[in-house]
């Protein structure tokens, strides 16, 4: 905890955030203007432990614009990889806005993340409301031809869902897979956020009504979603950690409702992505803006382990 506070210098100075398993703090919405940018790799402020054998990944959503801004954010990802060698990226949907011709795959994805792809970083995509189903066959999205799938990385099981079309078949699959899953960590990622303080969209409560009871029953630890073009860390809901990271290619400035009781921390002043590390019973996270600044950081405990030790 102390080490985290020291290494999260930017976050501590600007937001007073030290990283904690205890979410007792109030709402905190920040804008880009208050953040000091990091100019190059040497100035990357990393608050993640980079432990040996840990599962390291990046999460970003709503990327597929092919704009200069998307490229700038991708450049910041590459810079951070030098200090935090993440192995893979979870794409939270809206991977390609507009048309989906072969040229679009190139300009809105391959060109933008060229340096990461060249470094053999794997991207695992989910489908958003702007994505055609056939993206599931695209080799670089690693969906294995499926709209929903399970991915195992070390002690973490990742569940990619298609929130555009959560039908009986998918619900059954989710139940069946989770029922037999003994992984220490279970993380779900999909496009529409079950909880959100966004003014434009807000919470996908209908989806939540279906998936949250399943997550609770089988002990899903964390959920990542996009759709909203900002970052938000939701106060734990029924013990589950919910994150929104949908500002990878588009930004909706000022869209987070001020005073929302859901918000633990939010950032709608610039585009951003999340760096994550699962090390033992801890999930460490750090959120980086396009300017290279840390806008949120912390460490979360594995809820199931916590309740087990409490029970013992």
């Amino acid at each position, binding site marked *: 905890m102390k080490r985290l506070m020291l290494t999260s210098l930017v976050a501590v100075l600007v937001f007073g955030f030290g990283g904690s398993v205890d979410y007792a703090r109030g709402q905190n919405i920040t804008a880009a203007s208050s953040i000091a940018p990091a100019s190059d790799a040497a100035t990357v402020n990393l608050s993640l432990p980079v432990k040996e054998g840990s599962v390291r990944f990046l999460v970003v959503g709503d990327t597929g614009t092919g704009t200069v801004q998307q490229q700038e954010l991708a450049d910041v990802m590459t810079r951070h990889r030098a200090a935090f060698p993440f192995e893979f990226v979870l794409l939270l949907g809206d991977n390609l806005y507009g048309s989906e011709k072969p040229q679009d*795959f190139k300009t809105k994805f391959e060109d933008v993340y060229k340096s990461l792809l060249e470094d053999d970083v794997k991207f695992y995509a989910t489908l958003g*409301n702007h994505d055609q189903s056939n993206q599931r066959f695209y*080799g670089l999205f690693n969906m294995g031809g499926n709209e929903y799938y399970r991915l195992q990385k070390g002690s973490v099981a990742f569940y990619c869902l298609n929130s555009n079309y959560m039908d009986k078949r998918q*619900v059954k699959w989710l*139940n069946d897979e989770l029922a037999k899953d003994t992984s220490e960590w279970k993380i779900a990622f999909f496009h529409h956020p079950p909880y959100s303080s966004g003014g434009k*969209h807000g919470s996908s409560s*209908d989806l939540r009504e*279906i998936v949250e009871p399943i997550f609770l029953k089988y002990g899903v630890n964390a959920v990542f979603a996009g759709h909203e073009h900002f970052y938000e860390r939701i106060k734990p809901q029924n013990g589950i950690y919910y994150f929104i990271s949908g500002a990878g290619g588009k930004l909706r400035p000022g869209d987070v409702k001020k005073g929302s009781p859901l918000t633990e921390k939010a950032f709608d002043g610039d585009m951003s992505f999340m760096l994550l590390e699962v090390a033992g019973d801890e999930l460490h996270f750090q959120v980086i803006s396009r300017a290279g600044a840390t806008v949120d950081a912390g460490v979360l405990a594995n809820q199931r382990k916590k309740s087990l030790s409490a029970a013992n």
Partner: protein
Amino acid sequence: MTKKINKRTVFAFGRGARRWLVIAMLSLVAAPAFAQQAETVVAPPPTLSTKEQRAVDAFLERVRAYVALREGIENKLPKLSTQSTPEQIEAHETALEVKVRTARLGARRGEMFTPDVARHIRSTIKKEYRGRERVELRESVLEADTKGVALRVNYTYPEDKELVEMPPTLLLKLPQLPKQLRYRFVGRNMALVDRENELIIDYMLDALP
């Protein structure tokens, strides 16, 4: 009569009861322990009348016939691998679209969504979404940018247009489609779309109350 009373009872409880109803429906496909938990607190889901059941069965029969046709066509095309390039995906999609379209020349609106099944779908949505829930349903469906999407049978849904997130609670109540087909709201109307080639197989007007 009994059925009527059951339905009224369920709906009179409002959102809380409806949530349990959804959980009960989920339990049909979920693990046994989950089903057991839900069964103790909910009334059984409303069953369909013989007339409605007949309409749904006939609809699913037509759907299966379409799927058999398009599967026959797709099986003759080069298979897409899980490592396909964008060029291969586009070629496959276009070939499937052209061939299915040709095979269905002359297809007209209402051939899948016949009046009886369209009536059933409209009434399901009306019954299941009331008051605040209906308002929320309308908001979420109409929020999507589908302006300018021309609903024409045997034409494609434009790839640059947003897809409406289909409310999962509704999907659990509509007749279950094979994986190749999707229900999709376009404004207040509902289309039946092939997920592989984006062809609009049929559509019905004013699905959303």
